[in-house]
């Protein structure tokens, strides 16, 4: 099979030793103005424009190849500063790839300065409505006051006050998730060099019973990654009692902190 297309993984500011790892077999480096582009040659049968579009709608193919993409970049990230490219960046010729590197040289160098020695961690915060409602009287003085009134009232008045309380609970839940969410976010943000927000995912996609209230990425210095994780674990312990859960993923290549889009 002739592999005639150039598939791009990422670029690095130092020359990666590709012979070091069996998983780097088939990869090669293209050097342009001191920037090393890690690529592999791929066949038209899979990556020509028409075939790639077809393959991208095949979930199995996409899963396999997207994982391979991120896995390769992650392995490189263990030893080098890498700027990840999005999946499916394919060139016909080395010339057009190198033209891109030269055209975007300044912004690429700027990005290397931003991400050097750092990695991306994903944080999702979920809240469990039932757990929060169970503790509403402890967490909200207004709810507690109303509860005291209900206890002291006649059955008729108590009925009305209970309706009032269920309205109050909705407002308080809203307020509490905002307050706690912000507090947790601030705490995590302090440990990071930069942060970006991602879209919230609905329950059908998370497969979880609780509700996602934050989906964010944090840029963390590699030397601080252990501290970061330890802090998240203690924050997780602290917030589980009030009905919040924190999910952490990483380290990722700094995908969320590289926003270079081609000018068309």
């Amino acid at each position, binding site marked *: 099979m002739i592999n005639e297309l150039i598939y791009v993984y990422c670029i690095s500011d130092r020359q990666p030793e590709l012979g070091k790892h069996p998983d780097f077999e088939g990869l090669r480096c293209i050097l342009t103005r001191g920037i090393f582009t890690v690529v592999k040659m791929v066949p038209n049968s899979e990556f020509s424009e028409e075939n790639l579009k077809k393959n991208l709608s095949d979930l199995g193919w996409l899963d396999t190849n997207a994982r391979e993409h991120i896995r390769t970049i*992650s392995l490189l990230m263990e030893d080098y500063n890498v700027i*990840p490219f*999005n999946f499916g*960046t394919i060139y016909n010729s080395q010339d057009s790839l190198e033209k891109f590197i030269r055209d975007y040289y300044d912004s690429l160098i700027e990005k290397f300065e931003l991400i050097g020695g750092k990695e991306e961690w994903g944080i999702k915060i979920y809240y469990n409505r039932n757990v929060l409602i169970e503790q509403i009287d402890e967490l909200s003085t207004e709810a507690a006051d109303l509860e005291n009134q209900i206890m002291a009232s006649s059955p008729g008045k108590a009925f009305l006050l209970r309706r009032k309380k269920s309205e109050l609970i909705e407002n308080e839940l809203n307020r509490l998730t905002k307050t706690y969410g912000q507090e947790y976010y601030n705490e995590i943000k302090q440990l990071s060099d930069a942060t970006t927000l991602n879209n919230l995912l609905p329950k059908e996609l998370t497969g979880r019973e609780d509700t996602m209230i934050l989906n964010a990425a944090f840029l963390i210095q590699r030397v601080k990654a252990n501290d970061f*994780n330890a802090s998240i674990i203690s924050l997780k312990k602290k917030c589980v009692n009030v009905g919040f859960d924190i999910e952490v993923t990483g380290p990722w290549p700094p995908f969320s902190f590289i926003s270079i889009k081609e000018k068309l």
Partner: protein
Amino acid sequence: MHDNIIDRSKDVTILELLDRVLNKGVILTGDIVISVADVDLIYLGVKLMLSSVETMEKLKSGRYITSEKA
């Protein structure tokens, strides 16, 4: 904690992965043009597929996970 890259990969849902590899990083068309609209369609398609119970079950049972070398 997650020293092993394979363990790490298994923990990650395809959606979170795709959100990064398709929508972020250096986004170039390259010479093979997959337009932003196409990527949006792919992403939408994946979301639809993932929200179907059957696909979720398949993913959970690992039938779609074929890339991991033990």
